[in-house]
């Protein structure tokens, strides 16, 4: 890079020079909600599911750690996973993980593959379809397990 560096060109004005807004921040009525692309909504969902899974994971590590305390303790806690309400929670969990994972894969494809960027809407639909297939495979079987006996 002969002779060119960040130093040879005039440096941009320093950041953080914006004064506080001159006006009091306008309050209501709020604007409209942005009618964004499917990409925006799937990002929202990705965020929500990501956070949800993270908190589940924290709990899940703690409950699994009970195996170090005693078999009784572990079984007592894990037993609660088996009641029907938790069973539904597990469906939600798997749905969330499934969505997050499939959408994550879509994001990765879009990031690394120009075709993915061009056909991102198609990819979105593929994600939805695969997600439904996944749930069709999982939910009936799982609920049967939960509600059996």
């Amino acid at each position, binding site marked *: 890079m002969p002779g060119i560096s960040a130093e040879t060109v005039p440096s941009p004005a320093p950041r953080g020079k914006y004064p506080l807004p001159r006006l009091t921040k306008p309050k209501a009525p709020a604007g409209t909600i942005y009618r964004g692309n499917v990409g925006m909504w799937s990002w929202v969902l990705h965020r929500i599911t990501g956070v949800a899974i993270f908190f589940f994971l924290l709990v899940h590590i703690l409950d699994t750690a009970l195996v170090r305390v005693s078999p009784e303790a*572990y079984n007592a806690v894990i037993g609660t996973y088996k009641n029907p309400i938790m069973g539904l929670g597990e469906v939600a969990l798997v749905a969330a993980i499934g969505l997050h994972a499939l959408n994550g894969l879509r994001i990765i494809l879009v990031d690394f593959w120009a075709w993915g960027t061009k056909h991102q809407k198609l990819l979105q639909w593929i994600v939805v379809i695969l997600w439904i297939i996944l749930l069709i495979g999982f939910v009936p079987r799982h609920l049967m397990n939960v509600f059996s006996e």
Partner: protein
Amino acid sequence: MTTTIESPRAPRTVRRGGVNWEKWGWIYMRVSGVVLVVLIFGHLFVNLMLGDGVKALDFAFVGGKLSNPFWQIWDTLLLWLALIHGANGMRTITNDYAHNRLVGVVLKGAILAATVVLLILGTLVIYTFDPCPAGSPADLLASFCTAG
């Protein structure tokens, strides 16, 4: 999440210098994501789908799995990759929404602390786990405890 702020003129932090966590974080999210797909779905499949599914989960089941080095490595990877992935994701979200510096530092500190503690705890559990603790009722343990 689609609300907007009217005046985003909070000072932008100074850039440059040090390791570029953003780039590596970004790459890490993708690499770990791909691996996690295998690990998580494998984990879920074995735990929830095979046999009686969730009904089969108990100490004995876990004991059986964790005495197998294959599952030990599997779970270790799962633990580390998922927790760091999740923690990094939470860090990103915090950066987006915590406009107050102090709040940001506190939240990120909490995420970091929780992650470190749980990583150590989880790893210890996996590797110091005794599938056949002495004095436990045999019917709670994996079948191989009594066999040996």
